């Protein structure tokens, strides 16, 4: 929203100033990193770190080598565990997806209501100040004890982990709808529901998406923690299982695979965000 706010009078006034004009429209393009590595710096660093890992693995005394598997050994373990990891991913997603989606739906709906209704906003203060900051991992043992079956308990803790960031951000977004847009909605005579759906919701989308990406990271944490406690399948369970059997190559492979799955999910959310916020470009 900030970008839109500046593009108003202030920006056009600024563009009138000669100093600003030269600052925003440079004669020559800014110097760019050119050549083969341009835009791939992060991947280069990753490659260097993997190489370093291999070197360290050679140096480590052979009696500790089972604790510190080399990249080659780990990749072999990863390859042979792929079917098991695939099944684990499915099992994890059966928990992650319902918990996360429920958290997003509830967080957005309640956040938008609380952000636009003064008394609801006041009502949420003790919860957002006291309950939300509690690290949600502390609920895991109790949820497992309280709820029937591991799956429902895990879904519940994923929900709790993802709900707060989404809710708090949606509320902030809904509370900061620019005055001009609110005036506009009022002069058009939009009803309450239409106002929330067609003005407040799209206007809060930037906030909602930052809440959603924090929430997604939280739900992966909650998922794997819950699986360490009591699952019989899943990504967190995979890591825990091979750690218990001291099969560290497979355990490291599990960690890498979980990282890759998280990365893919975050990228997918980023894609979704760009599509939903196409009008901001």
């Amino acid at each position: 929203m900030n970008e839109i706010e500046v593009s108003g009078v202030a920006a056009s006034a600024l563009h009138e100033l000669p100093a600003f004009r030269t600052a925003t429209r440079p004669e020559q393009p800014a110097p760019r990193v050119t050549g083969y590595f341009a835009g791939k710096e992060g991947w280069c660093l990753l490659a260097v770190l993997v190489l370093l890992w291999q070197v360290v693995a050679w140096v480590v005394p052979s009696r500790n080598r089972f604790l510190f598997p080399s990249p080659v050994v780990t990749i072999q373990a990863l390859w042979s565990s792929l079917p098991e990891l695939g099944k684990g991913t499915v099992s994890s997603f059966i928990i992650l997806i319902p918990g996360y989606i429920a958290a997003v739906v509830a967080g957005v709906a309640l956040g938008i209501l609380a952000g636009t209704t003064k008394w609801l906003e006041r009502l949420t203060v003790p919860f957002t100040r006291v309950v939300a900051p509690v690290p949600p991992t502390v609920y895991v043992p109790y949820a497992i004890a309280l709820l029937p079956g591991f799956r429902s308990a895990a879904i519940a803790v994923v929900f709790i982990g993802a709900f707060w960031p989404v809710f708090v951000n949606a509320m902030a977004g809904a509370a900061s709808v620019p005055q001009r847009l609110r005036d506009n909605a009022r002069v058009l005579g939009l009803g309450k529901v239409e106002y929330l759906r067609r003005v407040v919701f799209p206007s809060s989308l930037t906030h909602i998406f930052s809440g959603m990406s924090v929430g997604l990271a939280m739900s992966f944490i909650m998922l794997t923690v819950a699986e360490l406690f009591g699952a019989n399948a899943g990504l967190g369970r995979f890591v825990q299982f091979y750690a218990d059997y001291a099969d560290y190559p497979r355990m490291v492979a599990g960690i890498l695979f979980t990282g890759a799955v998280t990365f893919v999910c975050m990228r997918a959310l980023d894609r979704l965000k760009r599509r939903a916020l196409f009008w901001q470009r």
Partner: protein
Amino acid sequence: MGTQTAPDRRPTLELDGVSFGYQNTAVLAEVTLQVREGEFICLLGPSGSGKSTMLRLLAGLESPQKGSIRLGGAQVVGPGLDRGVVFQDYSLFPWMSLTENVVLAIGKAHPGLLREQRHELAEEYLELVGLAEARAKYPGELSGGMCQRGAIARVLAMGAPVLLMDEPFGALDPVNRTRLQDLLLEIWNASKPARTIVFVTHDVDEALLLADRVVVLGACPGRIIADMEVPIPRPRPRRQTYARPEFHTLRKTVNEHLQGDMLRRLSDAETVEEAAGI
């Protein structure tokens, strides 16, 4: 106030002793004004004269602390579809295409229309303002001038008898401003019955070119210091209008009023900031 009410033109908008302010600052003091049906009136004044506040009061976005505002005899309470508003910027929702923006407004103003009819009407009005090609575009893809055209199409499509425009061309470059002034005049001349327009500006030439009547506001607190008819016949081709002696006399008078108000504030105030109303 010098309102010479013609028999066929009854007052439609009436402000009666309207005062408004924030905390300790009086924005408007005891403003009384009558706007006749079908009249094009310009509110002209420096910043701090409360001209935008006056428009917000007329739109129902604010309520007067003292006095009353009536529209067609009925008290104004809150915004209504009988008054269309065009803001300086931000008039369109950035996440909706031009058509969607206009269709949304039509849906509120004419709830009886079918989906296809709303779209047809929206396209008709977008064509009227020269945006037929751009109808599927989003405000972020359009220039400021095009956005204001869209906002005008939207407000016209709503069919409100009263249009309230808050410096609608204030953020545009001179070329676009000229074009949009001509477009607005053209549309206003063509519409039967004529719409009532209250147009806020700080540009004297703009006010004299567009308006039937110019109401000059003074600052700190905002109040009416002059109210004059613009006896220049319509249509008003820009070049000929600017060449008319009445135009120059009026411009001189308006500028004298504005300058007089500024000098009064300067002599009253201890500091420049105070004079500027800061």
